[in-house]
């Protein structure tokens, strides 16, 4: 099947994010992904859109966040686009320690935030980020079936 594509766009208000989440979940469920996988992927897109609103736009409404859903024969890609402050590339550095590596018995150290990107990285097969002409694009890729690639390479 040739590529099929749809762009979802919202104003940067958190009230609109469930609309994106629900639409993405339905679009994913049209593919060979299971309902749980579709839900997990929709969660990643919601995390990315929340980040764009909260971090790139400082919670100011009336900016725009776009999500481009592309359906290829072997994969889905999601491009989350904003025109706000760019993300520090260290946030996506491959060697960043995972916030999930916490000691479950050490109450005070449990993470209350900073989980979004880690959720995205452990669910998607590829995550990349570019900034061009003031437009930031976070690209999330998920391959179908056996094509899944581990995001953490065995050797550094």
């Amino acid at each position: 099947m040739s590529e099929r594509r749809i762009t979802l766009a919202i104003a940067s208000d958190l009230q609109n994010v469930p609309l994106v989440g629900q639409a993405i979940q339905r679009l994913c469920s049209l593919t060979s992904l299971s309902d749980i996988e579709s839900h997990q992927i929709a969660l990643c897109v919601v995390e990315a859109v929340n980040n764009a609103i909260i971090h790139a736009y400082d919670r100011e409404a009336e900016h725009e966040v776009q999500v481009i859903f592309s359906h290829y024969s072997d994969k889905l890609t999601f491009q989350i686009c904003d025109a706000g402050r760019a993300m520090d590339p260290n946030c996506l550095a491959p060697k960043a320690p995972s916030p999930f590596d916490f000691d479950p018995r050490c109450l005070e150290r449990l993470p209350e935030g900073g989980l979004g990107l880690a959720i995205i990285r452990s669910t998607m097969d590829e995550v990349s980020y570019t900034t061009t002409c003031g437009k930031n694009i976070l690209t999330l890729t998920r391959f179908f079936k056996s094509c899944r690639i581990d995001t953490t390479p065995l050797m550094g």
Partner: protein
Amino acid sequence: MQLDQRRAGDVLIVIPLEDRLDARIATDFKEQMTELIASGHTKIVLDLSKVEFIDSSGLGAIVSGLKRMGGRGELVVCGLQETTMTLFRLTRMDRVFQVFENERQAVSVLGGNEKDAAT
């Protein structure tokens, strides 16, 4: 956001009535949980059976409640749907929280009065 509350002996059952615990309402949810804990409740069952979707902010708010308990009490969760359970597992929060199938089991383990809890 709306939180239903019910008592079962000295256990407080808290039931968020939202289908999404997300960034829109995480702050409000966290504040309401903080108040309940500040007002002296030390055994809380968070019934998530009505919640279909939790994002990292919603999860953070739940973790925040547990931390606020400061080990002086218990905050357990129950009624997780398959989708939200997946999030607890992915983030390893299933190793932090006691997770029960339903209110009755959670209340029974916390030593509350089971007959006030829904199955």
